[in-house]
């Protein structure tokens, strides 16, 4: 398996507070990597550095061999890095379908004028994107809410739509910030199945933050543990369960 993402000596500080401290990490293509750690360990900060929301104070990030440390978030999205957020970030008054179609916008070729006048193949392009979006709708089993405003959906469904929006970008690397937070057991099981299916169907690499250790053990190939901004452990899920560092960070002993 080729390495897709390389992080070298990444540090992030907000004023005097160190959020991330000299982190090295390699993520293999097509694998599901879970980032775990107590609250404030720097998990979301790490994700934000990868997606470009935060600029690291020190260190470099390579995506598929290319240095992306200084690229803007949208440039990174264009390279194939997609993400979902801890708190759902969807257009609540728009339908599921429109939210997903919006996720395709980086793939749009038609310019403003042609799109506005709906000519020069703009309609053909829209049909093409619609087809792709419909495949995602089918994949995530959200046909019944296709035309429903996202704001009216249950929390679990909104999370699913958000995953769909991220998938619409056709990312090669997908960052999931607590995809199962606030879900009941059944919703969690569904989401876990979708995540596994995404990896299997499209070979998408995924980095996810998750608190539920059961889920982490079930779906991830690789586990990275952070504590106070420092990487304290890296290994397979069974190793993580045995690791004294992980246990200490979680249990505080």
């Amino acid at each position: 398996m080729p390495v897709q993402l390389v992080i070298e000596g990444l540090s992030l500080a907000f004023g005097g507070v160190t959020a991330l401290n000299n982190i090295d990490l390699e993520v293999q293509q097509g694998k599901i990597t879970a980032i775990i750690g107590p609250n404030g360990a720097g998990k979301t900060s790490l994700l934000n550095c990868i997606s470009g929301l935060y600029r690291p104070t020190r260190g470099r990030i390579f995506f598929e061999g290319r240095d992306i440390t200084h690229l803007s978030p949208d440039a990174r999205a264009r390279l194939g890095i997609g993400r979902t957020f801890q708190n759902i970030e969807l257009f609540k008054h728009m339908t599921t379908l429109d939210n997903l179609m919006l996720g395709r916008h980086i793939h749009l070729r038609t310019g403003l004028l042609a799109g506005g006048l709906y000519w020069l193949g703009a309609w053909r392009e829209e049909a093409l994107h619609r087809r792709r979006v419909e495949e995602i709708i089918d994949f995530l089993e959200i046909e019944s809410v296709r035309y429903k405003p996202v704001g009216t959906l249950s929390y679990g469904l909104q999370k699913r739509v958000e995953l769909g929006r991220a998938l619409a970008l056709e990312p090669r690397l997908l960052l999931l910030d607590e995809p199962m937070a606030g879900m009941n057991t059944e919703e969690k099981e569904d989401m876990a199945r979708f995540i596994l299916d995404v990896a299997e169907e499209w070979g998408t690499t995924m980095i996810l933050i998750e608190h539920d250790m059961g889920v982490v053990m079930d779906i991830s190939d690789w586990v990275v543990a952070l504590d106070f901004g420092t990487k304290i452990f890296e290994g397979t899920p069974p190793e993580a369960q045995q690791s004294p560092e992980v246990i200490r960070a979680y249990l505080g002993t």
Partner: protein
Amino acid sequence: MREDTLPKLLLRNAARLDNKVALREKEFGIWQSVSWRAYARHVQDFALGLAALGFRRGDKVAIIGDNRPEWLYTELAAQALGGAAVGIYQDSLPRELAYIIDHADATMVVVEDQEQVDKVLEIKEELPRVRKVIYFDPRGLRSYGDPLLAYFPEVEALGKEYGATHPDFFATEVARGQGEDVALIAYTSGTTGMPKGAMLTHCNLISMAKNLLAVDPLEQGDDFLSFLPLAWVGEQMLAVSAALWAGVTVNFPEEPETVRENLREIGPHVMFSPPRIWEDMVSRVMVKIEDASFFKRLAYRLLMPVGYRVADYRFAKRPLPFWLRALYFVADFVLFSAIKDHLGLVRLKRAYTGGAALGPDIFRFFHALGVNLKQIYGQTEIAGISVVHRDGDIKAHTVGLPIPETEIRIGEDGEILSRSPSVFIGYYKNPEATAETLAGGWLHSGDAGYLEENGHLVVIDRLKDVMRLADGSIFSPQFIENKLKFSPYVREAVVVGKDRPYVVALINIDMHNTGKWAEKRQLAYTTYIDLSQKPEVLDLVTGEVLRVNKELPEPVRIKKFVILHKELDADDEELTRTRKVRRRFVEEKYRSLIEALYTERETIGVESRVRYRDGHEALVSTALKVITVA
């Protein structure tokens, strides 16, 4: 070639109808069509694929999945090879799956997706005869390495290859099929013991379709939406047998959750659903109207009575006066067509309900809208249907008249017996149950019922739940109680009469509805007891009892009733927590009251202990009036 099997009918349709639409499935948000030609092609490829995997005449294939074209391809492919299909409900537990697959000796199992694959793999040790488990939704299954698994299109591809080396195999196998071959083994969920597999032949299924369509014709190209489990014989009736017979287009919903929208998009010409679907539609309309704008609510309030009036005229088979006809035209234009369009019922030629009793109000509601809703009666063992209402001869309390070639008789003990070419040939590997069910050459339904003078069949209850009066007349307390409870003014009713000279009833009025009724008439009342013993209320309830009596045979009509002085309550152990009457307990508790109903007394004194909110108790005595119904 005589079309005496379902695959032969399919080939006939493929030749005759060629590129006309046979199936439609919504995928990726668009309705995708499958022509008769392509339908037959899929069946041929899959059948040959099964043959290549070792499927032989007389073998069985078990099918588990939602309503999809692949379900029908599989069923017809198995039948084309002289085998039978065994439908299994999607929500069956692994234990139930294991029992049915094993008992039916299925050698192939065709399932929809990962969920079902997991279930079958979990029990594969118990299924030594199963050669292949074929799935048609590959998601999540790519990394499964089990050699038992195969992907539906792969089997079809295998079939294409097999066909290249065996060019005449398929046609020969189909031609070898005969009407007497078993086409379908339908497992019925027995209330007691293990499910039994009813074997239905091609002849059973085709004669059912022919006779049903003789009563209610469908045309080639009519639409049907298949959304109830295909393991249910009622769904098989229309989606397979009748559809092949008449060339009806079968539509499959996108997902089980999208049925409502898909129903509206398709606007089927025929539907068959159990009562809950119709009840659900009515409550959805009620909710929508509550939330609608002032004008819409006004239109509903003004025009619905017109519809009800017309429905009543039609039920009574009286000609519509001109003014009513004109009013109905307006009402339909303004309101009814809009409601029907919303529910997807606008093109319906007829709709069926069956499986359980449907309240007369629901019936009236749909007929008011102009939806031709009719009752069906039948069993799995008679291919699903033996009795149906005729157009223009609909009575909410009956199930209608036998279809052609069908005889209905009431046995000595009140059991409904039937005889027709659609009666099954027996339960698979269960000769004792077969002999019992087919004793004397008649199909024993296990239901009690009677025939009205006009020939309409009335179904009372399961035979084991009916009781007898002292003179031997049969009656079902539950059947009569349900009829009473259809009245908005009756909350609970307990009917008594076992080994007694006549039937009596203990009734609870519905405090809310009866109270409103009283308020409208400016009747002042204080408590439940006070309201329930008002002469006006007693008259009101008498009217309801008379209405019920009209639908009952003479000997088992309610002769006397009393309105109870208290509401039956789960806290007093009179009801279960699910609000079912605990008959034994109630009859014991109110024994003296019931005894009094079999004397000449006109009032019964009762005493009840009342506990007030502040905690102190008092003994209240009241005299309940005994009402003798004329």
